[in-house]
Each structure stands twice: as structure tokens, then as C-alpha cells.
């Protein structure tokens, strides 16, 4: 099908949801009105990071007027999980992080539930806790999951029962020991980063209703209603057909609303008060303390190159602090493992990527899924190595970065990308090589660059499906299971459908809220996969609908399908120049001559997509034919200043270029680039702080600070490159996560350029920077 000049692909059409959002009409879960029979709930949370539960006494709490039910983990032996089934809904015999839900109180008002929580008496036996993943990986560490060996686990995850190691991914490629002797320069460093939070503006909220008929309905702020349904149904032993998940618009996800977090608690509480809906809404403080986090990471990296700067060997260990439950985190360690080198050609690699239980909140998916964590160290150590060998950081990266068809660390051939052009474009945009004058005498200025890669980290068979149906007036409904988080998924789906059908963009509506009862299946809205995977499904469904229409009209006109097309809602014949409007015929079909019968009928287009070519990797070497579906790559460069008097950083410019395959909606890509750059920058300064008892110290916006309107760079130069992927719609891939993966190390590299100090640990607080400046420049003595 050829693209006409008025093709929607590549057009920055307006978002489908913008008007709802600016008028306050957009409905999020907390906005849904329930009647007077709505009950409210609050969770009783553990005050200890690691303890045995000796007893739970709910008697006094139950007697508070208005309390309708109190649930605990007592009668809930089943666990849930995505890749490793290790997580209880309510802690049963043991708590493993400060804030872990131990009981749930359901009451007629939220106030009563709050008071009842105070009356629940729990006796604990405190156990020694462990927070550092390296410490926790040692044989003498306190054991958090003695039953690790009995947990069901996906066949590509390798836990080590008897330890706190929930996943151990290995790369053994070439001969790294031998390669050191050929190296002219070797850099070795340990990098650390703490857990950080997603901080969506909308906190986690869900409402569950369990009816006497056995039907359960769960309304949730969810990126992935189907995964949510699957995990909870399996855990509770109910049929998928009996659990319905409804997911309205999401007020920010960033991975924190993928999988299941607090929603299963709402379901269990609803089951205790059959017939009445139960609402569970997290406060902002609970959002900081009790939802999933980005895992902490300790990376030990050693890397070497020859005298020409060609990378020869890399040896590394990643210790991911997976938190109390690693059901999702294990795949982060795995993804970090098979992408452990970063976007570089390194022929000899010895890598161990571990996910380790710690007494911290649950480590889970966060924008980048392991890539920001590992690039923090990788992109700095590459700069360190380049400096040792006397090469410019840009030159070093151009020399060593992966190119299409290169054999990468897991043994697969690199899928089509163009990282060099991304590097060249950012270098030009940031004026690499030009030393910029600081804007004030008390400031020092520097530039840094960092590159990245990421593949969608999914099971090998994650499916998308879509249905395209018409209304009588030929407006179109696109039914999908992929969620709108703000990234523009609905807009892109509408564009693709309109393009394939030959109708106007404005005539297409994407149906929402997502509803597992009606929406077609989508594995999850994660991994930046929707434009590619769901896009394929929508394209197929719209194409299927188009074929049905053309077949009916071709038959009606007695012409060949190939001579027909649809343009602006009209079927047109190139041959006869006849026209047939779509409206009415897409439902009622077309009458034969003299109304002797009819042809056609309601058009229902269906399509699906599932990659079929991902293979397993050898558990000992990490090698395999095809570890992932594809990679997306990009480069970022940062121009910043340090205030020598306060240690504060100001990022002046960020240049950001990504290879997106094909820009379906260019401006939406730019909005991801801009938002991602600021999110990435913010992540360099963020930190969840804990005291020695594992308690979160900064559970509010006052002390967990995210970028504000005054903190943004003066300019973000965003751009993209288009190297089509083999199996995406018009070659498109996703980019939603990639845009923030390497901002933190780019900042660290720029900081090094400015003041000559390397900071291997996040966050880059002004406090830390200032004291380091004092020491280096021997001031204040």
C-alpha cells in the first residue's frame, strides 16, 4: 500500500485525549463515583524491615463501629508474582520490609479505617536486616527467603536456593583473563546507586468488588490490566473469566503501575465484604514508602582496551538490591545481564548479574528496566578508559559502539540501528569540543556524553491484539489492551488505524477505559513496546477491516480489489472512478441489483502480533541465537555548570537523539525526549533515604525532591534518526524509556569535565559535590 502525500504516518496529529484532560473531564480511578455502599480501606503496615509475625490481634479493631472486615495473611497461603512467585498479598509469617502490608481494614469511612488500623495489635520478633546487596549476597547474610527453592519460577530465571540470590545471569564469552594482557589500558571501578521512586502524580488507587455470583471486578490505575488479572487470578485460584479488571487513564506509570502492587490487597478485602465495593487509595507518603522502587545497584566493572582504543575485555558483577520480593526484579537482573556491556562491541566478557533480596521495598520495573542502573557505571567507566588511552570520549564511542549486524554480548546479531548518527548529532548540537565560558565567575562549566541501548525485556512470547469496528456513520472504534499513560499510545493507535483504513484521524476513537471483559489482550504496557507490538496488531486489524470492506465493494461493483482504495472515508475505484461512502455499508452491507439480496455486513477487523523468534540463552554462558526482539539506541550530551560556592549543578543544555525506527508522530516523540531528559536529570539527584532500621526518612515531596519547573535545562535539543526495524509498523520502535537511561552518567561525565572529580555514587547532591570540591581544591583549610 503506497503512502499518499496526506499520509498520517509521520504527522504530528493532536493527541486524542488532550481536550478531556484540559477540561477536567478525563476520568482516573479515584474519580469514578461509586454509590453509598462504597467501603473504604487502609493497610496495616510493618514497622520493621525484617521480623517474624508472632501474633495478630484484631479484636479491638473489629469492634470499632463502622469496621466491616479485617483481613490478614493468615488464610492466604498463595503467593503471586510475574517471573518468580515469591510475594504474599499480606505478609503471613514474616515481614521483609518497613511498610509491608500485614493486614487490611475495611470500614464505612476512611476515617474509621484509619482509627481501626491503630487498634490492630501485632507482635513481632525482630530479625537482623540487610540492605546492601553485596552484603546480602554473601553466604553468612540473614536469609530472607528460606523457601526460595520451592517458588515457581519462569524457565529463564535461575535463583540460588539457600541464599538471597533470586537470579544469577551469566555471560561467559571469549577469554577475558587472557584479554587483559593485550590491553594497553584497564579501568576498574565500583559504582553505586540507591533505590529511587517513580513518583507518578496519581498515587496507586484501586477499587474491588466481589459479588455473591463469584464475579470480581477490580478498577485500578494500571498499566497492564491483563497481567494484573492473570497474576491475581492464578494466585487466588479463580478463573480469568471471573476476574474483570477495568483500567481507566493512568496519571503517570513509569513502570510502577505495571504488574501488581497493592491491587491484590483490595481484591482480598473485597472478598471479605462480599457485595460491597472496597476502595484502597494510597497517600503520597505510602506511595513513597510502600510501592515498588527502582532497585539499588552496586556494579563492579573492569574494562580494557588496546593501544588504539579498541575494547578487548570486560569483567563485571552487578549486584541488584531487589528488595523484599523479587518477582519482577529478577528479570531486570537478567536484562541487565544480556545487555551488560552497554552498546559496545566487546569480544571477551565475563559477567555476573545478580538479583539479591534485601530488606528494602520491592524492587521492580522502573522506566529503563535495569538500563539506567547499569549505564550509570558503564558510561562513566568508558570515559575513564578513554581518558587513560588519551582518546576523546566521542571518538572512543564512535570507535567502539555497536553497529547493525555486529555480534553483541549475548551472541545475537545487532538489529538495525544507527548509533553513530545519534552520537554525531548530539556532539554537533552540544558543540562538542568547544569549551564554553561559564556564565558567572563562581561557576565551572563542562560537557559530557553518554550513549545507551535497550531492548524490550519481555518473556519470549508477549502478545498484542486489536479489534477495529465501525459505527453506522463510519466513525471507527479501535479496541486495544494497551494503556495510555501519557505517552500517547491511544493517539498512535488511532493514527495507525486511520492510515490503514483511509479515514480521517478525527473519525477514529480508541475505546477506554481498558476492560479485560471487552478489550482484546495486551501483554503489558511496558518495555516501550506498544508502538511496535500493539501498533502491529492495530495495523493488522485495520488492514483486516479494510480488506473486508474492499471485498464487499469489489463484489458489489464486480471489480478487482487491487483496483480499489479507500481515501477520506470513500471507497474509490481507480478503474471506473466509482465511489462508495463507508457510512452505513460498514454495518448494513450493500444491496445487490434490484435489491435481490445483500452483500457484506458488520465489519469487524481483527489483528494480533507476537514475536516468534526469541530464543533461550544458555544458563552458563548467556549465549543464544536471539536474546531479544530488537534494540533501540540513542545518545545524550549534557552541558552544565557547577556553582563552586554551593556545589549545586545547573544543567544548561541537553542534546538528545534516539533511533526510533520510524516516527509515527514526531511531536509525541519529542515530548518523550523532553520529558525523559528532565526525568533522567531528576534521577541523578533523587534518593530514597533509610535509617538503620530500614525506615524511609523522606516520604514526602519536601524531602524526596523531583525536578520542578525551575530546575529544567535552558534548552533541550531533541532529534531522532529513523533506521526501520524489521517487524514494526512502518519500521517503528518505542522510545519512552530510552530517553532517560543515560542522562545521569552524562551529567557525571560533564561534571568530571568541569571539575575533574569522578563521582561513582548517586545521588549527585550539592552537599556531596561541594565537600568533594573543598577536598580537591584544598579550600577551607
Amino acid at each position: 500500500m503506497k503512502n499518499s502525500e496526506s499520509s498520517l504516518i509521520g504527522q504530528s496529529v493532536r493527541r486524542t485525549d488532550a481536550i478531556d484532560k484540559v477540561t477536567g473531564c478525563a476520568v482516573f480511578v479515584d474519580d469514578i463515583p461509586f454509590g453509598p455502599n462504597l467501603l473504604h480501606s487502609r493497610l496495616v503496615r510493618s514497622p520493621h524491615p525484617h521480623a517474624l509475625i508472632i501474633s495478630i490481634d484484631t479484636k479491638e479493631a473489629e469492634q470499632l463501629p463502622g469496621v466491616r472486615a479485617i483481613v490478614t495473611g493468615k488464610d492466604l497461603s498463595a503467593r503471586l508474582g510475574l517471573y518468580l512467585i515469591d510475594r504474599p498479598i499480606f505478609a503471613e509469617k514474616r515481614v521483609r520490609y518497613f511498610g509491608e502490608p500485614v493486614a487490611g481494614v475495611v470500614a464505612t469511612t476512611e476515617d474509621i479505617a484509619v482509627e481501626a488500623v491503630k487498634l490492630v495489635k501485632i507482635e513481632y520478633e525482630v530479625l537482623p536486616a540487610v540492605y546492601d546487596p553485596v552484603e546480602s549476597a554473601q553466604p553468612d547474610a540473614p536469609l530472607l527467603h528460606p523457601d526460595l527453592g520451592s517458588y515457581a519460577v519462569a524457565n529463564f530465571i535461575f535463583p540460588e536456593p539457600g541464599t538471597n540470590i533470586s537470579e544469577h545471569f551469566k555471560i561467559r564469552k571469549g577469554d577475558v583473563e587472557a584479554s587483559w594482557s593485550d590491553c594497553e589500558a584497564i579501568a576498574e571501578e565500583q559504582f553505586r546507586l540507591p533505590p529511587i521512586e517513580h513518583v507518578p502524580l496519581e498515587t496507586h488507587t484501586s477499587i474491588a468488588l466481589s459479588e455473591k455470583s463469584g464475579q470480581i471486578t477490580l478498577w485500578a490505575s494500571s498499566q497492564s490490566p491483563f497481567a494484573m488479572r492473570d497474576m491475581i487470578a492464578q494466585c487466588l485460584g479463580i478463573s480469568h473469566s471471573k476476574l474483570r479488571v477495568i483500567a481507566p487513564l493512568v496519571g503517570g506509570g513509569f513502570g510502577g503501575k505495571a504488574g501488581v502492587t497493592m491491587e491484590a490487597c483490595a481484591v482480598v478485602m473485597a472478598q471479605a465484604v462480599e457485595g460491597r465495593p472496597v476502595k484502597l487509595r494510597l497517600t503520597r507518603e505510602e506511595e513513597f514508602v510502600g510501592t515498588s522502587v527502582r532497585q539499588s545497584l552496586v556494579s563492579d566493572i573492569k574494562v580494557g582496551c588496546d593501544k588504539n582504543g579498541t575494547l578487548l575485555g570486560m569483567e563485571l558483577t552487578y549486584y541488584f538490591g531487589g528488595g523484599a520480593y523479587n518477582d519482577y526484579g529478577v528479570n531486570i537482573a537478567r536484562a541487565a545481564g544480556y545487555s551488560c556491556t552497554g552498546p559496545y562491541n566487546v569480544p571477551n566478557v565475563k559477567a555476573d548479574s545478580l538479583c539479591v533480596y534485601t530488606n528494602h521495598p520491592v524492587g521492580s520495573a522502573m522506566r529503563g528496566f535495569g538500563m539506567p542502573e547499569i549505564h550509570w557505571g558503564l558510561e562513566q567507566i568508558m570515559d575513564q578508559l578513554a581518558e587513560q588511552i588519551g582518546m576523546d570520549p566521542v571518538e572512543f564511542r564512535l570507535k567502539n559502539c555497536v553497529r547493525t549486524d555486529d555480534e553483541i554480548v549475548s551472541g545475537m546479531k545487532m538489529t538495525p540501528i544507527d548509533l553513530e548518527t545519534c552520537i554525531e548529532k548530539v556532539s554537533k548540537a552540544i558543540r562538542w569540543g568547544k569549551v564554553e565560558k561559564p556564565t558567572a565567575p563562581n561557576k565551572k562549566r563542562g560537557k559530557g556524553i553518554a550513549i545507551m541501548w535497550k531492548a524490550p525485556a519481555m518473556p519470549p512470547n508477549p502478545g498484542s491484539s486489536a479489534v477495529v469496528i465501525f459505527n453506522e456513520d463510519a466513525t471507527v472504534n479501535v479496541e486495544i489492551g494497551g494503556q495510555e499513560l501519557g505517552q500517547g499510545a491511544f493517539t498512535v493507535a488511532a493514527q495507525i488505524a486511520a492510515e490503514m483504513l483511509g479515514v480521517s484521524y478525527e473519525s477514529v476513537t480508541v475505546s477506554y477505559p481498558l476492560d479485560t471483559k471487552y478489550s482484546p489482550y495486551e501483554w503489558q504496557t511496558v518495555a516501550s513496546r506498544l508502538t511496535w507490538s500493539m501498533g502491529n496488531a492495530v495495523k493488522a486489524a485495520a488492514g483486516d477491516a479494510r480488506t473486508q470492506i474492499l471485498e464487499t465493494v469489489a463484489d458489489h461493483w464486480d471489480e478487482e480489489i487491487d483496483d480499489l482504495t479507500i481515501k477520506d472515508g470513500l471507497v474509490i475505484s481507480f478503474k471506473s472512478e466509482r465511489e462508495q461512502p463507508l457510512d452505513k455499508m460498514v454495518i448494513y452491507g450493500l444491496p445487490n441489483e434490484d435489491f435481490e439480496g445483500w452483500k457484506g455486513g458488520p465489519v469487524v477487523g481483527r489483528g494480533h502480533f507476537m514475536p516468534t523468534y526469541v530464543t533461550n540463552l544458555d544458563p552458563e554462558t548467556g549465549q543464544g541465537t536471539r536474546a531479544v526482539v530488537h534494540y533501540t539506541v540513542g545518545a545524550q550530551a549534557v552541558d552544565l555548570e557547577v556553582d563552586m560556592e554551593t556545589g549545586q549543578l545547573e544543567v544548561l543544555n541537553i542534546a538528545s537523539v534516539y533511533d526510533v525506527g520510524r516516527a509515527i508522530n514526531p511531536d509525541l516523540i519529542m515530548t518523550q525526549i523532553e520529558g525523559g531528559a528532565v526525568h533522567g536529570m531528576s534521577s541523578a539527584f533523587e534518593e530514597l533515604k533509610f535509617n538503620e532500621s530500614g525506615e524511609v526518612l523522606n516520604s514526602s515531596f519536601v524531602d524526596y525532591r523531583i525536578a520542578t519547573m525551575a530546575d529544567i535545562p535552558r534548552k533541550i535539543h531533541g532529534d531522532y534518526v529513523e533506521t526501520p526495524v524489521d517487524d514494526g509498523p512502518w519500521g517503528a520502535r518505542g522510545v519512552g524509556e530510552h530517553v532517560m537511561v543515560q542522562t545521569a552518567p552524562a551529567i557525571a561525565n560533564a561534571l568530571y569535565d568541569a571539575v575533574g572529580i569522578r563521582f561513582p555514587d548517586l545521588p549527585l547532591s550539592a552537599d556531596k559535590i561541594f565537600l568533594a570540591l573543598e577536598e580537591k581544591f584544598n579550600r577551607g583549610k
Partner: protein
Amino acid sequence: MVIHTISLIINGTEEQLQVPSNMTLLHVLRDKLGFTGTKNGCEAGECGACTVLVDGEPMNSCLVLAVELNGREITTVEGLAEDGKLTPLQQAFVDLNAVQCGYCTPGMLMSATALLRRNPHPSETDIQEALIGNLCRCTGYQRIIDAILKASRNGGTR
């Protein structure tokens, strides 16, 4: 618990209400009156998602008791567009893709609406100072600033 009878003028319409002492304007708007455009982001005056105008001045509705506002005029995001026509500011947000997840958007619009009324031609710094109490995690803010600048060039807002 004392129940007070109050009247609030919301988007031009007087509402008679019975409210407990401890109910904030945020909860009265959302739970008693169904004006769910105003969002609950932190209940601590930090994120601005709950921003409404009280007699034209932006306030965090999470930190005001409804009973304190007896007789006052409240404007929420639902009260901006008239007869289905978006204000120049709302239109600018739409045109410039200054909206992603949309959760911060109502608060941003209320703060910006008040800003343009008191300062019809703000600089970028003026905008930052006025909206420092409106957090956004998705957009990176620049589009929001640009939309406010665009609206100020198109004759501001009503």
C-alpha cells in the same frame, strides 16, 4: 463532629452544603460535589494538583477547610471553558502537547490562569515562580511554559 451549613459559589453556581469541620475544600469538591477535575496528589501543599482559585487566587484546596470559605467564590478547571469553548490557555495546552498523563494539568491551568490575569505578559522566570508549586513528572515542563507564553500572546485568558 460538628456539621456546618455553608454556601460555596462554585464556577458561578451557589451550592448549599453540610460539611464536617475537618473536610477540606478538596474533598468537598471531589466527594460531595463530584468536581473530580481537581486532583489529590499529596495533601501537603507540595504538588499543586489540587490547585483551585478562591476569589481568583490560587490555593491548594487540600490545605483549606471548606468551612473557612463560606460565601466565597471557587473556580475549578471545570469552570474555565465556557459553552464548550476552550480558553486560549487550554487551547494552547492542547496545541502544544503540554499534556501527557494529564494529572497535573488542572492544577497547572488554574495557577496559570491566575498568573495571566495578574500578569498578562509574564517572562519565563515569572512563570516558573508562579508555578513552582505545580509538579509534573511527564512533560519536563517546557511545553507548559511555552503554552502559557502562547496564551499570553493570544490575549491571555478570561
